[in-house]
């Protein structure tokens, strides 16, 4: 009976998944669909949420002449040399816009003016960024607001249009407005940062769309940057960081950034749990014996879309979060689903655990005379 319920729930899950997005189960890497266009549209209808310009945030965003004037010049950032990622907090009417940045090399005194827009070959989306590390060369030409921004990727021509960037309040990270856009976004960066001796410092900005951070990671070879992003995958962490930033927003400079950098970014109690349990001898029996524990350790690993190449075409299997579970309109169902499906799993584990404990308690199975010791 329990098996029946278990598998029935599993089938229902799959059914929902395939009914809603069956056509997107196998998609080309260029056809990645965005998850929350509706939410973004709602925000836009409310008056929009836009990145605050001015000096109130660690980054001085220059939005040009305001929301409608997002005609951004795509500044060259091809000489980036050190990675950086940033969050843009919800900037709805009740929450002021803030930008939280975290430099991986602890360099905190950065005040770049960045302007950015989205160039999308609608209805597709994938990140495009000037990166010196990922081996791809992106060239953008003729970018204007509400205009085409056709571009080349590795000498391949793409027709695209400029889209605005808005912030999804509920999903806490910058999102891109447009119906299933997604194509390529690029950052135009007017980089006026300086290093400690006043020389211009090249920057690399990583956009961090929430659910797809790992997806983007496939575009970057800098594992250090993305392993750091791993630590920020929990909603709570983002919220904590934003709260932390808001608390100390009256501080400036080094103190502010040191506070942010020292904040408890990773609150997962299991993050370091297996740190001492390393596979020191791969391929050994010990490694194989301990593989169940490694498996457990990886249960909370963030999903990474599977990409493979067939007939010289990149095929990507997107994560379930991208296809279905990450959509805002299924969150209530997801909660119910977790209650049922997750609860059942936990129940089974607990039953097994109690049985195991019973076995340990069984006198006939325990010949140890502890009292003699």
């Amino acid at each position: 009976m329990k098996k029946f319920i278990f598998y029935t729930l599993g089938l229902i899950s799959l059914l929902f998944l395939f009914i809603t997005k069956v056509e997107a189960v196998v998609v080309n890497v260029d056809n990645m669909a965005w998850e929350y266009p509706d939410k973004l549209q709602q925000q836009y209808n409310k008056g929009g949420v836009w990145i605050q310009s001015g000096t109130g945030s660690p980054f001085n965003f220059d939005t040009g002449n305001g929301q409608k004037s997002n005609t951004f010049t795509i500044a060259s950032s091809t000489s980036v040399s050190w990675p950086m990622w940033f969050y843009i907090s919800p900037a709805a009417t009740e929450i002021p816009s803030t930008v939280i940045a975290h430099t991986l090399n602890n360099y905190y005194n950065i005040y770049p003016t960045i302007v950015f827009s989205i160039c999308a070959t609608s209805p597709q989306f994938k990140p495009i960024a000037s990166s010196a590390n990922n081996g791809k060369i992106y060239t953008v030409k003729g970018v204007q607001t509400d205009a085409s921004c056709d571009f080349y990727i590795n000498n391949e021509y793409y027709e695209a249009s400029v889209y605005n960037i808005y912030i999804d309040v509920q999903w806490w990270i910058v999102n891109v407005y447009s119906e299933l856009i997604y194509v390529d976004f690029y950052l135009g960066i007017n980089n006026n940062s300086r290093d400690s001796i006043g020389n211009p410092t090249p920057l690399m900005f990583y956009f961090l769309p929430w659910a797809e951070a790992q997806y983007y990671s496939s575009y970057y070879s800098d594992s250090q940057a993305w392993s750091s992003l791993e630590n920020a995958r929990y909603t709570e962490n983002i919220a904590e960081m934003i709260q932390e930033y808001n608390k100390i927003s009256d501080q400036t400079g080094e103190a502010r950034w040191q506070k942010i950098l020292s904040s408890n970014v990773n609150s997962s109690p299991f993050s370091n749990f297996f740190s001492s349990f390393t596979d020191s001898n791969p391929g050994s029996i010990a490694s194989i014996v301990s593989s169940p524990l490694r498996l457990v350790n990886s249960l909370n690993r963030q999903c990474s879309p599977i990409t493979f190449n067939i007939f010289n075409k990149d095929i990507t299997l997107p994560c379930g979060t991208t296809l279905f579970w990450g959509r805002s309109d299924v969150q209530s169902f997801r909660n119910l689903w977790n209650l049922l499906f997750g609860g059942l799993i936990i129940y089974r584990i607990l039953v097994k655990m109690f049985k195991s404990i019973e076995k340990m308690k069984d006198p006939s199975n325990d010949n140890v005379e502890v009292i003699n010791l």
Partner: protein
Amino acid sequence: MIESLVNTLLQGVLNLVSFLINILLTPIDNLISTYLPSLSNALLSVDNLINKCIEYIGFCISYTGITTTTINIIIPLIVFLYTVPLLVHGIKLSIKWFKTLRG
């Protein structure tokens, strides 16, 4: 506080299990790698396969719809389930050896 305590306790258990596994199996591994290199290669292949499976587990879980909150509840239960009995049996075995040696 309790979470920290449990975490520390489980971590200690895990370290001990890891230590025991390594102590017990290292000589066997050395023997295999020295005298049975082909078997060693086969074990390496198995290990690679396991690692490949582990690599995609996040992908599979994303399709189940289980949230990180639920997973974070499940993980310590599984850890407890698989480590504590092993530890208990290890202790039993140690006591048995001790008693045997003591005569």
